[in-house]
């Protein structure tokens, strides 16, 4: 057995890095037992917390980078410990010593230089917008700024999603404009990777841009953007009203502004994205939307709402390699098939990306389609 001596300076540094409530953990291990890694390679969250309480080392391995920040442990924690913030704080500390995994370094580098983690050129950002008929945001003309995440600019699958967004907005008569290439990544995942400085720059840059254009209401398609605009930007001085596409559609449907006539004959199940569900408690809006699409047979998976299984793409995991068979998205596809679904719907570009990959890897292309709720709504528009 090893001998350990507490190193409280480290513990205090972690506390100061955003884990103020670290010490109230009473080691019940609800976190470990709730962690989605349980069915893959269990992650001992409780032990990480206790190590942090005593300032002990033990983060050299990969464990600290495995957390997807899915928030399951956080919402169940009986002592309300901000476990995701704790992970972030530890990563931040490790980041200062430069021990960040290689793949994340690339994402951070690209974000620093090009404003997106996808190694895409900045000038290509939001190029799709003009093709889809979006005009530059003008506060006198547009109800919303559409902040569409980095992905549609650099990923062809996500591009389809914004096409659907364009169709739905136009059908509902909702006017949204976009910002150009000076806009940057929202920074949510960057912060979770532990690069607080870079996050601060992104938030400041976007905040300034919002202010210059008089942006008050932002429409997002990614729950990650939603989360950071709503819960993190205000601390840094930028307060905008944020609406997620599913919320917008739910209220448009309720108000009779969307005429969903064309049946979408499919057995649909819905995957709650962590950042829409557990982080922001939006569970009902996407379900209401799905239920109002004619032809849709809606079924729940076993793990739904706040028990939903993470897709594995949060917390920087998007840019890390996960071994085949260890990907949560690989577990999710069979679960969806198990409840008889032929469409796995969700509401997050990251989730879609993860599931599309798994669908191919698992050779299930013929059995299941991956759709954003917005895409299904677009299909149902006559």
């Amino acid at each position, binding site marked *: 057995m090893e001998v350990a001596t507490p190193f409280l300076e480290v513990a205090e540094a972690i506390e100061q890095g955003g884990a103020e409530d670290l010490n109230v953990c009473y*080691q*019940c291990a609800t976190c*470990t037992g709730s962690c989605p890694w*349980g069915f893959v390679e269990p992650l001992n969250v409780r032990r990480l917390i206790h190590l942090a309480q005593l300032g002990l080392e033990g983060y050299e391995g990969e464990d600290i980078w495995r957390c997807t920040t899915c928030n399951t442990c956080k919402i*169940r924690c009986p002592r309300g410990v901000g476990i995701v913030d704790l992970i972030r704080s530890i990563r931040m500390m490790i980041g200062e010593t430069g021990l960040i995994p290689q793949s994340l370094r690339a994402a951070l580098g690209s974000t620093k230089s090009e404003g997106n983690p996808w190694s895409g050129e900045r000038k290509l950002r939001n190029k799709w917008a003009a093709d889809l008929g979006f005009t530059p945001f003008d506060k006198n003309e547009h109800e919303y700024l559409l902040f569409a995440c980095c992905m549609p600019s650099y990923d062809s699958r996500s591009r389809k999603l914004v096409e659907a967004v364009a169709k739905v907005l136009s059908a509902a008569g909702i006017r949204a404009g976009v910002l150009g290439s000076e806009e940057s990544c929202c920074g949510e995942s960057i912060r979770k990777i532990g690069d607080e400085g870079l996050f601060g720059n992104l938030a400041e840059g976007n905040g300034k841009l919002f202010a210059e254009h008089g942006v008050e209401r932002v429409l997002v398609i990614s729950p990650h953007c939603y989360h950071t605009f709503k819960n993190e930007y205000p601390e840094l001085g930028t307060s905008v009203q944020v609406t997620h596409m599913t919320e917008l559609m739910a209220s448009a449907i309720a108000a009779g502004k969307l005429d969903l006539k064309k049946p979408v004959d499919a057995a649909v199940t819905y995957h709650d994205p962590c950042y829409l569900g557990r982080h922001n408690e939006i569970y009902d809006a996407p379900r209401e939307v799905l239920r109002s699409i004619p032809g849709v047979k809606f079924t729940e998976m076993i793990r739904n*709402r706040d*028990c939903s299984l993470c897709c594995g793409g949060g917390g920087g995991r998007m840019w890390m390699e996960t071994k085949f068979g260890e990907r949560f998205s690989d577990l999710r596809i069979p679960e969806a098939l198990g409840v008889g679904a032929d469409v796995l719907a969700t509401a997050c570009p990251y989730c879609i990306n993860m599931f599309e990959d798994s669908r191919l890897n698992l050779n299930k292309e013929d059995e299941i389609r991956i759709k954003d709720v917005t895409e299904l709504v677009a299909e149902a528009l006559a």
Partner: protein
Amino acid sequence: MPKKIGVYICHCGSNIAGTVDVEAVAEFAKGLGGVTLAKDYKFMCSDPGQDMLKEDIRSSGLDGVVIAACSPLMHELTFRKAALEAGLNPFLVQIANIREQCSWVTEDRALATQKAKALVAGAVARALSHEPLEMRRVEVQPSALIVGGGIAGIQAALDLADAGVQVYMVEREPTIGGHMAMFDKTFPTLDCSACILTPKMTAVGSHPNIQLMAYSEVEEVSGYIGNFRVKVRRKAAYVDHDKCTGCGLCMEKCPYKVDSEFDQGLSKRRAIYVPFPQAVPNKPVIDRDACAYFKKGKCRVCEKVCEPGAIDFEQQDSIEEIETGAIIVSTGFQAMDMTAMPQLGYGKHAEVYSALEFERLNNAAGPTLGKIVTKDGREPTSVAILHCTGSRDENYHRYCSRVCCMYALKYAHLIKEKIPEAAVYQFYIDMRCFGKGYEEFYQRLQEEGVRFIRGKAAQVWSGKEYRAIATDDTGLEVDDAQLVVQAEDTLLGKLVRVPVDMIVLTPAFEARDDAEQVGKAFLLNRGADGFFLEQHPKLAPVSTTNDGVFIAGGCQGPKDIPDTVAQGSAAASKALSLITRREIEIEANTAYIDEELCSGCKNCLDICPYNAIDFDDEKNRAVLNEALCKACGTCAATCPSGAIRARHFADDQIFAEIEGVMSI
């Protein structure tokens, strides 16, 4: 003649003197107008401290005293009493709270001393404006009302009735007995709950000094200590209990069944029913919502079979008025609804039980006659008991429910006793076995072979669910009827999954849903946890801020049977000590309406929450009924002409205090 004020600065050991420069404050007080003497002293509340105060009052002819010490809520009465003994009207004493609101909350010595000076200046200014008041004496009604007939109320009722006090017991349900009546065995001695409770229930039912009002609820409380007036709604039972012989034929013949509340829905009862065979009173009531006659206008079978003709469908609720000197609120608790934690599968999986359900399942008089079996009749080969479900949890209840560890052990014992080969797992965070014989009981269960897993159960899946989602291959095979519990065994540092046939949850004890309403009726404060707040957590555990109203049992906070009974007796003794005084003094700081100044503007009339202000049309004046006044002063703060004086908190007195505290 100028007033002579004595000022005393208490050190309270180092509690005050450690932070406040008491000598400097005393020196400061000496310079204040009207102050004849100012001293600092180690412990003012000690006998020598009080003796010094009394001596000074006598020898220096003080006509006002300021004690700068702890909160007035702590020792105001002590010093008032001392003043009285020295011949000074007790209302000429003023307390400056320089401990709870100064020395204990201020770090900086200079700032604490400055604040203490300001508070003393305020108190001196106020003392200069004080006027002597006479305490009012009122008679105490020699009776007590007990609200809630669980074991706390039963204990209190018997203690009081045996002492010769007339007791009224109001119980909402058709029977008394409360939660304890549902239990089978009690920890750690394992004596049968019914065996020890039933005789007490019967005693309540037959005691000449107890008037039992079951199936009744308190509607309204008015009056004050020694003289409460309480309106009780006697709910219509639709059975004339004077005629009813309790033969039970009606219940046998009633064709309509609904879930039995007493059996936690695990069995059925009839529309006309007594909750359980040993109920007291053992007379049935008709459940309107279940009765076919009330719903559809047809049936009346019970009426036909009732030989004494006791069924009375025309019966109405009635209101009975009680006058009582003391009130004991023992309204109990409720168990948390476990569907709030969906990850544990309660309400979704048939074999996940709440504690009360398991009590009934295990009870010899319960739905299975005490056989521990699954809903489909199998004897479980393994059971998991999950601790702290909803307790010690920021998301639900922060507090520990205090009894779960112990009854979880009791369940393990009962399972082992009935099914010796069954595996029993306890998923716990900390074992809290603090009572007499409790730790020994824990050890006994370890000896009996119960397995302890230190880690809170995080997830529960049905076997079917588990097979669908468990993609890792741990070699664990489960069938459809089984459940899987997942937790980290923190002592191993490993994730464990345990397949079991049955799971018992330990729902948090909660304040009842109607605690707010009950609290309002009896003017009880509630803590952040929702339970009724005692006057002092250590020294006045059953008293409340509403004089003459006491609390006992689960309504005050989670507790086990021994503690509940102890509180029942404690509340009875407090009530008895009040009642046997026959006459008590009550605060004299009531409002006073100066007839010479009242213009009859009527602004005060609807302001008084106790309807203590009437209007004399002939004189065109508002008239105060002092007996009803509780001295809140709201009327005085409403009177536009200053005709109402809030004694001891009058405008001029508050003004003086404001001038004082603002003077430095």
